[in-house]
């Protein structure tokens, strides 16, 4: 699975981190880091992360 975050949109809310902690994380400055090619087994939680992103910045490209 390919995950793309539009970093121009991202405002570091961190809601994706709660939904998919294996894929998204926040660094010590409160900025987003993520795994761009997570295992397909994580699809459901990545979809949840995309849903809860207040900026709708997360896209899943198969």
């Amino acid at each position, binding site marked *: 699975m390919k995950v793309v975050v539009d970093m121009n949109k991202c*405002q*570091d809310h961190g*809601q994706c981190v709660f939904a998919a902690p294996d894929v998204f994380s926040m660094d010590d400055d409160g900025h987003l880091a993520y795994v761009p090619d997570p295992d397909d087994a994580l699809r459901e939680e990545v979809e949840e992360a995309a849903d*809860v992103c*207040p900026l*709708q910045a997360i896209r899943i490209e198969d």
Partner: protein
Amino acid sequence: MTARILVAGASLGGLRAAEQLRAAGWTGAVTVVGDEPHMPYNRPPLSKEVLAGKAPFASLAFTPKAAAQDVEWRLGTKVVAARLTERTVTLDDGSTVAYDGLVVATGVRPRRLRCPGPLDGRHMVRTLAQARNLRDELTRPGARVVVVGAGFIGCEVAATAVGLGVAEVTVVDPLPLPMVGPLGPLLARALLRRHEERGVRFALGVGVTGFEGEDRVTGVRLADGAVLPADVVVESVGSVANVEWLEDNGLDLSDGVLTDEQLRVGGRPEVIAVGDVARFPNARYDGVPRRVEHWSIPTDTAKHAAKALVAHLGGSDKELAPFTPLPTFWSDQHGFRLQSFGAPVLGLDDVRVLDGDPEGDVLVGYHVDGRLTGVVALGGHAVATSAARYRAQLLKQPAPTS
């Protein structure tokens, strides 16, 4: 005939309901009816990026999931009545639509001030069209702006206006501090100071009694007799749920539509409510039904309610676990962020600084009987992230009843 679920309301709640009906295995028809001409779009930027001219519509539109591609969208159309016993709704073109399942997702509209004076020049920021109108007026040279209501929306609009270079922005509220109802005085004072430092003026502890002007607003009259000159007025005094279409069905519509802990309406398993319009009990807290106008609620409610509805329509009477969301909200004002987890409003009598200092970045905890019931961070992104560290703790506990 194909079985049909009708979704009344085409904003985030309606969209998520349609998607979650498919995710829950519903293969019948889904029809979404909404009165705005647009596909569902994201509203939080309306008081911020849209007003600031930084967000075109394309950047606000949600992208419906692939599984929801066959959903029928009837936009620019309003549901005006429902007969729940007959399982039909009436649309504003006079037509009647029969349903097997009904999703109430009609949301809220801004409450209007009912005091004398002209209407022209008075604005709200619930819809894209309203935000665009307001932007056009805010960007006129020399505009004097009065924001009525010092809640989150009002304070966001005031911050955006100052950021746009508007020289005179005054926020009026009968309460003594901005956002004090949900946050309590400690953070409200910190917020007041931040706004004042950036040029926002406040008239607090005083209500509005009327508007000056003939055809168009020229000033706002306050209860103490003062008149604030105004070219542009923004009304941000709360909201009213869009439930009129559900009248005459014996429902409790006293504030939104009352649901049970599965988000079912009026004891009818084929009718569910999602989003701002739903007044639901949260067993995590005191079980008192409340409407919750947080951005996360349409998605949370849709996920739960769609499962319950599809299970029922599929013939299953298995009861799901009750809906017990952990509330969360944020607000961005002048480049600083408020981030909340849990239910601070239940712990307003015992507010403690957990980290930092109200003069700078600060993390505040709200307690009931000594137990944490909510946290709010104010400041930069790092402190907002630190609030998230309390989220797991807040999720674990059913919070105490107050």
